[in-house]
């Protein structure tokens, strides 16, 4: 968008208007002077009811960045008018959004005039609320985000981090612990079963060996008194029992 100062505007008009009648020209000139003067007074940097806007189009869109020209500015003004309509329920128009101090950064100041009385500005609070309510729509009109379309002084409404109902770590923990506890039970059960099997195998053999031992002992004790006891027949009896 081309930057015009008051004097340049007047010069252009003068050059353009030679063909028109003098009175008509004067009226138009005076009207233009008044509006631009009025606008100049209402919109200035660090205005009490104004906001600075900063766009970072190339950062956001890279190769697909669009050029910021007066069409985009018109879109901005109409989007702001839309937001103000939503906030205050009054018939805001594009002309109620006044923009000034545009820079090559793509940053500018804007103020909002009331549709009921164009010399009064809408207060800062209402503008802020309007912007916050419609932030998403304003952003998406320009394909930008909260960081790349900044309204200086209006904090972002932050999204709470997404917390699922059951914490996922509890699920994984449950799976792991379930597997481990099941494994422990299986191992312990296995070893108990194995021990029982070993016990059952041992019991008939145990009785044999115990009897042999006790007989051996009685033989030792009795050998001094009774003589040699013939073990062979009784041993065979024991073995055939199996």
């Amino acid at each position, binding site marked *: 968008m081309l930057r015009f100062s008051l004097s340049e505007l007047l010069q252009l008009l003068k050059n353009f208007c030679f063909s028109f009648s003098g009175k008509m020209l004067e009226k138009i000139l005076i009207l233009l002077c008044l509006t631009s003067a009025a606008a100049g007074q209402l919109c200035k940097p660090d205005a009490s009811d104004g906001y600075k806007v*900063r766009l*970072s*189009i*190339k*950062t956001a869109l890279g190769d697909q960045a669009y050029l910021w020209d007066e069409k985009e500015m018109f879109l901005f003004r109409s989007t702001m008018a839309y937001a103000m309509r939503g906030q205050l329920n009054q018939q805001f128009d594009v002309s109620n959004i006044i923009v000034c101090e545009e*820079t*090559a*950064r*793509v*940053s500018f100041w804007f103020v909002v005039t009331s549709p009921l009385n164009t010399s009064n500005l809408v207060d800062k609070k209402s503008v802020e609320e309007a912007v916050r309510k419609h932030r998403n729509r304003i952003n998406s009109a320009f394909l930008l985000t909260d960081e790349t379309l900044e309204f200086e002084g209006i*904090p972002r*409404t*932050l999204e*709470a*981090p*997404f917390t*699922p109902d059951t914490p*996922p*770590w*509890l*699920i*994984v*923990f449950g799976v*792991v*612990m379930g597997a*481990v*506890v099941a*494994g*422990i039970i299986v*191992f*312990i059960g296995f*070893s108990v079963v194995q021990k029982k099997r070993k016990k059952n195998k041992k019991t008939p053999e145990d009785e044999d060996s115990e009897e042999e031992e006790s007989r051996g002992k009685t033989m030792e004790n009795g050998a001094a008194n009774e003589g040699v006891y013939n073990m062979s027949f009784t041993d065979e009896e024991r073995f055939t029992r199996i």
Partner: protein
Amino acid sequence: MRFVLANPGLDNRIPSYKDLERTEEEAGDRPKWDNKAQYILTCVGFCIGIGNVWRFPYLCQSHGGGAFIILYLILLVLEGMPLLLLEFAIGQRLRKGSVGVWRSINPYLTGIGIGSMLVSLLIGLYYNTLIAWIMWYLFNSFQNPLPWSQCPLNDNGTGFVPECQRSSTMDYYFYRVTLNSSTSIAESGGIHWPIVVCLLAAWTVICICYIRGISTSGKAVYVTAILPYIVLTIFLIRGLTLKGALSGIIYLFTPDINELTKPTTWLDAGAQVFYAFSLAWGGLISFSSYNPIHNNCMQDAMILTAITGFTSIFSAVVTYTVIGFRATENYDSCISDNILTLLNAFDLPEDSITTSNYEAAFHHLNSSNPDIVFGLGIKPCDMQKLLSEGVEGTGLAFIVFTEAIMEMPGSPAWSVLFFVMLFCLGISTLFGNIEGVVVPLKDLKMLPKKWPQEAITGVTCFIAFIISLLFAQHSGIYWVTLFDNFAGSVPLLTIGFFEMIAVVYIYGIDRFNEDMKFMIGYKPSIFWQVSWRFTSPLVVLVILVFYLVTQSQEELTYLVWDPKSDQFPSLASVPYPSWINLIIFILAGIPSLTVPAYALCRLVFVYFKKTNN
């Protein structure tokens, strides 16, 4: 040197060669390895631990890169390998766990075994807490976006919680959400239940893996020892394709020869070699005792040394590709932020300052409007500083690496892979640890003999879980650091030194050489003789003395996470309270002093018995 102390009755206490050949043919009660691969994998898993990923790369980079690696490899061969072979051979020959071996050599030396057991217990307690933290991060990696990528909102909803805003999302997640750390070791602040839950998980996993001794843990190592290598390779490939990886690797390997002249470099290298091999824990002796009698332990020692050296360097490379990537990302965003600040302040069009002409533009603006530029408070972006940030210990794994993983596409998958790798590294070390605790308990007959292996493992794990609730407090991280610094340093060096003296001068180096000849078929070469008699004990003694001297000269301080301190978000350095000296004595003094204390007690006991008779 033929100097050997008198050791009567040695032949009665140890199995003779005939006994050994006989037990070899019979099937014994003693557990055995299913195959050689199981034994090697268990030892590799034991030696390669979390320290290889988060301690060695930091030491390497801070002590002169390439020069340190050469020094490390030299010390690995001169100091580590002889000690390793010593432990392997003595375990294989005497076929007992750590207490049994030293008791066989001389009953007065049982203190070495008891010291090993105490050290293994103390280290196991805090090591498993690290594994519990790793499990917490692992469990929380199964979601997108990762929970440490966002700050929670404050009460108004207008901004983030200030503690998170001032530091970073990863710091906040680690120190506040995971640990809820208090501001000093004295403030216990109660138990933080997520850590209790993770500790329970960690101890039950260890319990089930070791439930039948090496017959179950030997199967588990097929996964826990091999998986880290697979994951490291995946990370290497991923890391090398990331932007800025090469700057990290160059930073790691840039040699600084001047560092070799500093004694601290040698000290750190020697200590790292000692800890890398998990010597003096007692686990290696135990593991070797399950080997067949004619197993070639010399070959095993050399294989293990080579694998350890290779893995240390490999993991250092992987770690530094990721660190280089993170530093480059942070540097780029720092430059972008500065560019944006300048553009906004001077209302220049967006493309006027890019990363390539930033320096020139900055100088131009600074010379034309110095006061405005000064008022903006632009911080200079320093790549070297970013590369050297927080690259050691828990800071590396839980803050630097998690930040880097957040920047990679598909971050939950990478996070899961990374923490699974750390988990496997930790748990395979813990197998050796628990072996070094359970087997001495059995040898010392402190548990009833009738109890099956399952019950012994279960009871040990349960009691250890109860004790490790100490680390579930809000001050838990400071206790972990305390244990790491004191239980895992001086006692190991002391016990290692005593081990060497015991084998070389009390058991007798000649007898030891004969045993080696019997087991592997030839006598060890002159290199081993010199190392066992002079080099290794000397190196360990020097490191121990230097360490004690430097520790006693420094004031004992530790780092705390204190949002109210001036250095926040950096950790503040705070002196320890006075009662910590008692704790340090318990951690470091008692295991080191068990060797002379036990010998003394036994001397007194025997003397009284003699006088009574």
